[in-house]
């Protein structure tokens, strides 16, 4: 039986902590003297009170959480927290609907970066900071969720690597206790963010822009404080720095943690995902650059490479920054980028999609079936980093792929039925489900999700949540078996 009471109790604590996070934009607003100051005191107050009420109300029913309660907690956290995160938007932007505000908050916390707001340059700095903070906090949550918590619940991508691994991967179990692991991961996350802020500042951004974009980059979200995204800066140096940090954030933070602790690059070499991830990203950059040059989109290879690498890396890592309207490129390039966003990032990173580890398993499974036809009696194990992957994990991944495909189809159908053209519908779903941000067609990099009606916005919001929580951890809450005693 799920203990709703104790779950609500924890949720109350989380909300109270979240209220403190809101104090940051409040301070910034105070410092800059911007127009949104009045939005935060109310928002902080409401959030804190709600948290306190929830905590106090369920105090008597507090018990040790069981794994099954974890699913409910995760699902509730990712749906309830965004509701409170909307408060600053709702209070400051009087004419913003709750649907759009909730979309914006979910988009931030799931590190998607799809936006319904326009006129970003004119928004008060504190609102822009709040948007990118949502991404940063969401990224932090996702890293811990994916590396430390989901494996414990027996779901999620990194559970594949959980079993005691022999040889070079021996210490994949980072630390014996979750809280220690979480702390370690956060330290790594904070160090990288600080490095990103300094690098962006040195590359020519203002300090405020550097902070906003560093948050956005490390969470692989993609909110910018400018309507033109990176087109506003038009600086190869800034783009290069951002490419580097996007690539960093797309690697498993568990691997980063090991590399930090050992002060060596060996963990990256022995990680089964990092190599494939970087390989796919680099080859795609070169390939798309060549493709753009061959189609006379850009006059020289270096220009083509600059635009190709920034946009390819941004979309493949599910960030969603853009420095040009890639919607205008010959259709192969943007479609290839969308395709990459489905699988390129590593498990345990802040990226979305099905993750590289599942893609690798699927490719190996497909190859195995072919070898089996030739050698019916052969025993062919599927291996990752020299370790045999159990068949039940392969089945779990297959089921995940099926649900992923099913979700994508259903959501696309819903959007198409509600009147969107098929390119917009499909790419909006791909972009939402992979927590990426911009799609093609009407939701391309130069436009935004404000064109969608309320129903379509909710479909995208649901897709983002499903994608972020790796489908099963949220879908399981809706099964009758989950609630049965």
């Amino acid at each position: 039986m799920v203990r709703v009471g104790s779950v609500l109790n924890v949720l109350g604590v989380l909300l109270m902590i979240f209220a403190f996070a809101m104090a940051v934009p409040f301070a910034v607003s105070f410092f800059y003297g911007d127009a949104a100051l009045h939005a935060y005191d109310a928002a902080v107050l409401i959030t804190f009170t709600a948290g306190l009420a929830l905590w106090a109300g369920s105090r008597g029913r507090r018990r040790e959480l069981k794994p099954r309660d974890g699913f409910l907690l995760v699902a509730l956290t990712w749906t309830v927290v965004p509701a409170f995160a909307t408060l600053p938007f709702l209070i400051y932007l009087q004419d913003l609907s709750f649907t759009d505000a909730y979309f914006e908050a979910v988009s931030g916390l799931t590190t998607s970066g799809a936006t319904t707001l326009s006129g970003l340059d004119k928004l008060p700095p504190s609102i822009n900071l709040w948007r990118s903070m949502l991404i940063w906090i969401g990224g932090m949550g996702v890293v811990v969720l994916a590396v430390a918590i989901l494996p414990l619940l027996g779901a999620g991508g990194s559970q594949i690597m959980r079993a005691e691994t022999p040889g070079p991967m021996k210490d994949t179990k980072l630390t014996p206790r979750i809280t220690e692991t979480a702390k370690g991961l956060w330290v790594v996350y904070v160090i990288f963010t600080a490095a990103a802020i300094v690098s962006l500042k040195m590359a020519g951004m203002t300090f405020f822009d550097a902070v906003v974009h560093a948050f956005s980059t490390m969470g692989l979200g993609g909110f910018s404080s400018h309507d033109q995204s990176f087109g506003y800066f038009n600086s190869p140096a800034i783009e290069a720095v951002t490419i580097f940090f996007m690539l960093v954030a797309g690697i498993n933070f568990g691997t980063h943690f090991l590399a930090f602790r050992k002060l060596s690059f060996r963990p990256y070499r022995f990680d089964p995902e990092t190599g494939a991830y970087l390989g796919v990203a680099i080859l795609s950059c070169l390939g798309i650059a060549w493709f753009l040059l061959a189609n006379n989109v850009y006059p020289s290879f270096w220009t083509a490479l600059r635009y190709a690498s920034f946009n390819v890396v941004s979309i493949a890592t599910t960030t969603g920054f853009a420095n040009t309207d890639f919607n205008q490129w010959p259709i192969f390039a943007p479609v290839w980028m969308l395709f990459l966003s489905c699988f390129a990032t590593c498990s345990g990173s802040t990226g979305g999609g099905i993750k590289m580890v599942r893609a690798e398993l699927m490719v190996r499974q497909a190859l195995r079936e072919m070898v089996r036809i030739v050698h019916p009696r052969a025993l062919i194990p599927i291996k990752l980093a020299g370790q045999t992957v159990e068949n039940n994990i392969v089945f779990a991944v297959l089921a995940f792929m099926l649900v992923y495909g099913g979700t994508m189809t259903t959501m696309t159908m819903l959007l198409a039925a509600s009147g969107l053209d098929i390119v917009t519908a499909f790419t909006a779903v791909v972009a939402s489900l992979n927590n990426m941000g911009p799609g093609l067609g009407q939701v391309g990099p130069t436009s935004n999700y404000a064109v969608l009606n309320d129903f379509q916005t909710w479909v995208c919001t649901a897709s983002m949540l499903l994608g972020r929580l790796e489908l099963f951890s949220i879908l399981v809450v809706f099964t009758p078996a989950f609630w049965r005693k």
Partner: protein
Amino acid sequence: MKIVILGAGQVGSSVAESLVSERNDITVVDTDPVRLRNLQDRLDLRTVTGSASHPTVLVEAGIEDADMVIAVTQSDETNLVACKLAQQLFNVPTRIARIRATDFLAEERILGQECFAIDLAICPEQVLTDYIVKLIEFPEALQVLEFADGKVSLVAVRAFQGGPLVGHQLQDIRKHMPSVDVRIAAIFRGDASILPEGDTVVEAGDEVFCLAAAEHIRQVLREMRRMDKPVRRVMIAGGGNIGWRLAEALESNYVVKILEQNKRRCEILAGRLDSALVLQGDATDESLLEAENVDEMDIFIAVTNDDENNIMSCLLARRMGARRVVALINRRSYVDLLQAGQIDIAISPAQATIGTLLAHVRRGDVTQVHALRRGAAEALEAVVHGDAQSGPLVGRRIEDIELPKGAGIGAIVRGEEVIMAHHDTVVQAEDHVIVFVTNKKLVPKVEKLFQVGVGFV
């Protein structure tokens, strides 16, 4: 010598068998009384039932006045403990243990005097694997053996019509290969051995033993027969310890398929091996062999636990078109039946692995012993000690050394230098001398030569 052998498994029994024949007092310890009874029925030795790591059992086996303990039980840990006890409690001078796990060998201190105190760690499976790998590397050879840490090789090869030297006198070999220093150590024609002279003519069908520096083996083989195509495809029947090690050693350079009957063992193998294809099934299953293209195999190696299965699967593979078949056969009588018949090479695990052990049992400073022709002949490497007064060797020319008839000095390793023995070569102290003995009965006489005279001590 009083020797206690712990473990009466395959290795234990074959060690016991070879040592009994060399006139030693043997006691064998094992937990399984049936095995011990079988052994006692066959050989002249004493047996004790009990766990090999228990001090009381060891005392009962007479470890207190033993000269050597050989721990070859199934378990590495038992062997380690027994050797430590033998050193600490019973002062046994020589302790030999079978250690399978490479982890124990990773650091020298683990087996050192302070820790487990093991003088010699042997891993028969590894020795056997190396032996077979050599045969695959040199598919023309019947046997490739190494002396002096691999500086000198002894190859056995069957002369075939078409080899440049076949039908010619041995002295012609120098005209064929002026740059290669090679010595024909012995020739076996049928069951008789011929002591090679310069005018001996090599005939097709002869089994020729040649000594040469390791890098010259291929050229020497070319003299005796046309070269085969190099091996590319290998099929291994049996995924036990040997099959697994073999597949692991071969998989990076050859296309390897390995057959194993037990499904769980298959899963373990598939997990450990990288590119080798693990197939679940019986090695004598004709349809499986056919489906897996046994006729395309350059070499088929049967290394299951079962002699009959190995023989049968090899015969089957040969009939279905495998180019070369190699079988692991424990029973000596089977080996004698099959060699040079339908099966190209029959390997006797005991013969292949006993050498390193024997070197420790022998008198004189013998560093390496290789059994040849299923134990009938022997090649040994020994170190010459003493000076011109005390020893029968130092300072003598090879033609002046009184070796029993049927024994010959093949080569001398002096430091890093390899010298092929000629009649006027002078032996010096600390030389490693490689002696070829065509009849095992002569071995004690040869050993005596390497013992330093009483006056010197």
